C-alpha cells in the first residue's frame, strides 16, 4: 500500500511557525492527530525555518508529538547534530529526510546513517543541480542505493526522491520522471519511490487537478509513497483508489472502508 508522509509540521508554514514560537502544544497535537486520522503513515517534522532555533524547536516539537504519535516520524533536517538528538528522542524506527549526492550533504549524512536502524529519503540531487534526463535520475538513484547498501541500509529501507520538476517550463518533465521511476523500480524492485508532487504543477492554474492526475500516473510507474498534505482529502481519495486499481487492496477492503467513512466520494 501507498505510504503517505504528512508534510504539515514544518516551521516554514506560517501557523506552525507561530505555534512553535509560542510553544502552543495544543495546536501541534491537534494537527498531528488530524494527519494521522486522515491516513498519514509518517509525520514529517521540520524545525528549520526559525534560523538559529532549529535545535530547541525540534526538541520541543518531538517532546510534544511523541506521546500522541501512533505512526513513525520523519526527521527532517540537513544537520546531523540535530538528527542525532532527534534520533534518540523517538520511539518508533524513524525515517530520515534526507541524504543526497551533493558532496557536503552526502559527506555529513553518511557517517550519521552508518550503523543506524532507520528508513531514509534519498534525493536524486548532486552538485551539478537538478537532474536533466530520465537516465540522469536513474543513475543518481543507483549511486544512492549502492552507497547506502554499503553502510548497511537495506534497499527496502530506502525511499528515492526522483525530484519532480515543473511541467510549465518544459512539457517533457512529466515523462522524464515517469520513465525514470520505471527504470529505478526495474533495477531495484525493493526500493521505495517518494517525493513531493506539487512541483509538477508550479506555474499553472488549478494545481490540485494536475497533482492528483500526476500521482495516478506516478503510482502506475512505481511510486509508492509521497510527501503531501494528508488533509487534502481529494488526493488521499485518489491515492487509495489507485492502490485498489493496481491490485494492492485485497478484496477492495480499504477502498470500501474509505467510502463508508466518507473519505472517498466520486
Amino acid at each position, binding site marked *: 500500500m501507498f505510504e503517505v508522509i504528512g508534510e504539515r509540521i514544518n516551521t*516554514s508554514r506560517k501557523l506552525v511557525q507561530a505555534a512553535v514560537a509560542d510553544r502552543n502544544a495544543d495546536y501541534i497535537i491537534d494537527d498531528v492527530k488530524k494527519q494521522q486520522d486522515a491516513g498519514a503513515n509518517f509525520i514529517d517534522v521540520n524545525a*528549520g*525555518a526559525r*534560523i538559529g532555533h532549529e535545535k530547541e524547536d525540534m526538541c520541543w516539537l518531538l517532546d510534544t508529538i511523541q506521546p500522541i504519535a501512533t505512526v513513525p516520524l520523519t526527521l527532517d533536517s*540537513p544537520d546531523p547534530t540535530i538528527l542525532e538528538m532527534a534520533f534518540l528522542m523517538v520511539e518508533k524506527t524513524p525515517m530520515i529526510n534526507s541524504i543526497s549526492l*551533493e558532496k557536503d550533504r552526502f559527506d555529513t549524512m553518511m557517517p550519521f546513517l552508518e550503523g543506524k536502524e532507520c528508513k531514509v529519503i534519498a534525493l536524486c*540531487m548532486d*552538485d551539478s*543541480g*537538478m537532474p536533466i534526463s530520465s537516465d540522469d535520475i536513474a543513475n543518481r538513484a543507483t549511486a544512492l542505493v549502492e552507497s547506502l547498501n554499503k553502510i548497511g541500509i537495506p534497499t527496502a529501507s530506502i525511499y528515492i526522491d526522483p525530484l519532480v*520538476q*515543473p511541467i*510549465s*517550463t518544459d*512539457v517533457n518533465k512529466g515523462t522524464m520522471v515517469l520513465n525514470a521511476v520505471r527504470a529505478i523500480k526495474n533495477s531495484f524492485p525493493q526500493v521505495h519511490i517518494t517525493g513531493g508532487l506539487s512541483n509538477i504543477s*508550479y*506555474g*499553472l*492554474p488549478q494545481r490540485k487537478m494536475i497533482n492528483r492526475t500526476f500521482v495516478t500516473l506516478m503510482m502506475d510507474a512505481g511510486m509508492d509513497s509521497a510527501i503531501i498534505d494528508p488533509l487534502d482529502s481529494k488526493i488521499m481519495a485518489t491515492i487509495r483508489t489507485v492502490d485498489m486499481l493496481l491490485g494492492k487492496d485485497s478484496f477492495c477492503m480499504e477502498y470500501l472502508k474509505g467510502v463508508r467513512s466518507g473519505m472517498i466520494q466520486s
Partner: protein
Amino acid sequence: MTDFNKIKETLVSLDVQHLIELVNEALKKGTSAVDILNDGLIAGMDIVGEKMENEDMFIPEVLMAAQAMSQCVEILKPLLGDEGSSTKGNVIIGTVKGDLHDIGKNLVSMMMESAGMEVYNLGVDIAPEDFVSQIREKNAQIVCLSALLTTTMPMMKLTVDAIVEAGLRDQVKILVGGAPVTQEFADEIGADGFAADAGSASKLAKKLAA
C-alpha cells in the same frame, strides 16, 4: 503610421506568425527598429508581465511570448545599431551559494531581458565574492538574489553584507526572491526590494533602475 497597439495585442495573444508579419510590415513602412522594439515588443511584454502577476497568463504562455519576442528581436537586430544597445539597466542575477534551484531565477532573467535590460545570469550556487566581482565587472545597477531553501536564505544576508563591505552598496539596488522569501525578510537583511513572481520582479527592477 505603425499601430503599436496591434503589435502589443498580437504578442499578448501569442500569434507568432502574425507578429512577425506585423514587425516586417512596420519596417517596410519606415518605422525605426528601436521604436518597434520599445513601443511594440517591450511594451507588449510589460502587459504579459502584468497578466502573469494577475494570474491571467501562466508560465508556458509567458515562455511562448518571450520566444516570439526574441524571434522578432532577431529580425530587428541588424537594424538596431548603437541606438539599440542603450539598455534600461545592467542586471546581475544568480542563485546564492549552496542553492541549486534555477527555474524561478531563469524566468525572472527572461522577463527582465524582455523588458530591455541587459541581464547577466550567473547561474546557481554563486558565492558572495562572485556577486561582488561581477557587479564591478558588469557595472551593474541591479543585483537579483534567488534562494529556494530556508537553509540558504541566510546566504542572502551574507551576500548583501559582502556587497556593503566591498563599498558597492550605493551603486546597486538589491532585489531578492524565491519561494520562502518575504518582504519582511527582504527588509530585515537590508535589500531594496522583493517580488513574488517574475512579472513583478521585472517591473520593480525597471522602476529601481530608472
